[in-house]
């Protein structure tokens, strides 16, 4: 029972982290049909920016609670700047090109952004433990947990709720859905698709940055951060169904829990399990477990 609860919590915590990052990836894919490899860099940039400023402000004697503000600010600033610059500077000129070629372009961007981090922040790892230290720890199911890690679950739930509300309860969501389903029809119905693209990309980038910024206090923020996370989010997005927020949620939960289970019970398969699930889903349900409905053909 203790183990069960622990695995569940570990799994959910990992799922939450995966979800925040993958939500951004899947939104960008859904609307723009771009599988953005550079998303891993948004994550890394979010983490670096947050860690850098949390450290700086802490040195200046600001209260540690500022850290939470910085996390949010870092995500927004990173998303706005990187999202805008990349979409307007590069991707905009590629929309008429082959889908796969755009993936490759984002791979090139990924390589570039990784090294710019190195040049901008140096090689020394950053620590931003203040927000985590502030929240202390609790005992749950026989083991001590840091409260900060648990808030990750709440943040993920908020992101999910926010996305759901935006998509289903607002005029914006209606338009977004139209573009997601068919870009050309979106244009024909008068939707300013270029603007939708720019905003979507920025929004997705903010989520990627938020994933990094929020996780930053719990890790040592060091170069190479984005390489791992991007394939993991690919797995999540593929398992759930590319372009679906609900899919990203389900995908995160499946992969997060499976991984936690593996770490506890069979540590050797921890890495393998994630990608095996991805491959199996692709083989049997290439559209993902949460494939969106299709209209009748006749």
């Amino acid at each position, binding site marked *: 029972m*203790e*183990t069960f609860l*622990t*695995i569940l*919590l*570990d*799994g959910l*915590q*990992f799922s939450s*982290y995966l979800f925040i990052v993958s939500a951004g990836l899947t939104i960008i894919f859904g609307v723009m049909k771009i599988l953005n490899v550079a998303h891993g860099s948004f994550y890394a940039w979010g983490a670096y920016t947050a860690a850098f400023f949390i450290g700086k402000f802490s040195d200046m004697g600001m209260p540690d609670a500022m850290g939470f503000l910085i996390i949010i600010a870092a995500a927004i600033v990173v998303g706005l700047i990187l999202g805008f610059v990349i979409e307007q500077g590069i991707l905009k000129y590629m929309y008429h090109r082959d889908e796969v070629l755009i993936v490759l372009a984002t791979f090139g961007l990924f390589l570039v952004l990784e090294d710019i981090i*190195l*040049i901008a922040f*140096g*090689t*020394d*790892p950053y*620590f931003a*433990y203040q927000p*985590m*230290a502030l929240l202390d*720890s609790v005992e749950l199911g*026989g*083991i*001590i*947990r*840091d409260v*900060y*890690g648990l808030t990750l679950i709440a943040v993920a739930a908020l992101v999910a709720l926010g996305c759901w509300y935006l998509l289903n309860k607002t005029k914006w969501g209606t338009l977004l859905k139209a573009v997601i389903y068919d870009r050309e029809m979106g244009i024909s119905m008068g939707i300013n698709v270029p603007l939708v693209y720019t905003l979507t990309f920025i929004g997705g980038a903010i989520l990627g940055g938020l994933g990094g910024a929020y*996780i930053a206090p*719990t*890790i*040592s923020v*060091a*170069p*190479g*951060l984005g390489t*791992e996370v991007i394939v993991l989010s690919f797995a999540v997005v593929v398992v759930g169904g590319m372009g679906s927020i609900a899919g990203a949620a389900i995908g995160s939960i499946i992969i997060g829990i499976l*991984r*936690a289970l593996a*770490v*506890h*019970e069979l*540590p*050797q398969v*921890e*890495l393998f399990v994630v990608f095996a699930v991805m491959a199996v889903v692709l083989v049997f349900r290439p559209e993902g477990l949460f494939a969106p409905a299709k209209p009748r053909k006749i």
Partner: protein
Amino acid sequence: MKHNYLARAVGLAAISAMTLGAGSALAKDAITIAVPSFLTGGAAGPFGIPAMNGAKMVADAINAGKLPAPYDSKGFGGATATIEAIDEGGGATKQVAEYRNLVEKRGVDAVVGYISSGNCQALAPIAEELKQFTIFATCGTPRIFEEAPRKYVFRTMGHATADNVAAAMYVKEKYPDLKGYTGINQNYAWGQDSWRDFDLTLKQIMPNSMASDKTQFPKIFAGQYGSEISAMSLDKADLIHTSFWGGDLEAFIFQGNARGLFKKKIGVFTVGGTAAYRLGKKLPDGLVLGARGPYGILVRDRDSALNQWFVNTYKNLYGTYPSGPAYQYGQAILAAKIAYDKAGSDASDEALGDALRGITFESFSTTVEMSLGGGHQAVTENGYGITKYDDENGENVVTDVKFYPGSCIMPPEGVNSVDWIKGGMKGAKC
């Protein structure tokens, strides 16, 4: 500062290229030493950069003839050495390709460095193939000199067996009632060897303590250990062994500390030394801390002239006390000087090897005996201590430091580490 450093490295590379182009006279007045270390990736800050700093500081002092006696002669056999900084990141295969370039394209005179055991293991046969005088500075897997005899490859510090046998002995002395132990180690040669040696030694010397059946081997540079920490928290074992180093080490300490892991369990950190200066108050008290030998925080107060020169010069140059990697790289550069002094600056790779093989020399913090692996593998003492934050001075110190002589913690010549431990560590002189 690091940017300066990069610019300087590029500049030096250019200069060295020109010197090479100019053609070298018979008795060289300039040599090029390639120094690979982690300049990128999570291991750079805590490990790679201090290591490179140590190498550069010692090389500069040697070039200027400013090392304390007996090393106060100018240069490497009289020649001025240019240090070429090489990034060790990117995996063993990339390093192999890069090493071939270093030797065959850039024509460096010596290669001194390498932190990762994976890289050393991959490069040892290549160095032999290319007949290139190479000193491994820090990497720890014992396999390098146990798998095959080497002619051109040396290692100037003890290997993983020494770290972990010493750790086990220290644990036995400090915690004689230990019931069980588990471990978290990276899933490559270094982590696997470290755990194996520690586990086997404890089985020998503390047969009543039980090893956990769920030891963790996360991928190197994984960075997030939430589930692993939970799993170890639930484990009955009361001690956690880890050979984590660099960024992984620091991440693990943070995450474990936030979750009270080190309040419930004894932490044994065989490469923990680097964290002591970097983490300050964030390093929990009561950890069993090693530095892979008599280096860094464990030997800060040793008052030999060489050691005081090392500590003070480093502090002045880089604003912090030197950690293990700085010592280890400095020591390897020193060994290169000794070899060049003996063999001459224009010596062949063979002659340099002959000069270093089997010798004993006084290094900054300890005596190094090149007595294993046919005179290619160093033996030194190794020590452990317990961390404690010193509120008065605002820094970490280690208490209860205990050193074990090299002959006590490393197998005698010709015996493989694992067999030696399994056989009850025969011939150990403690």
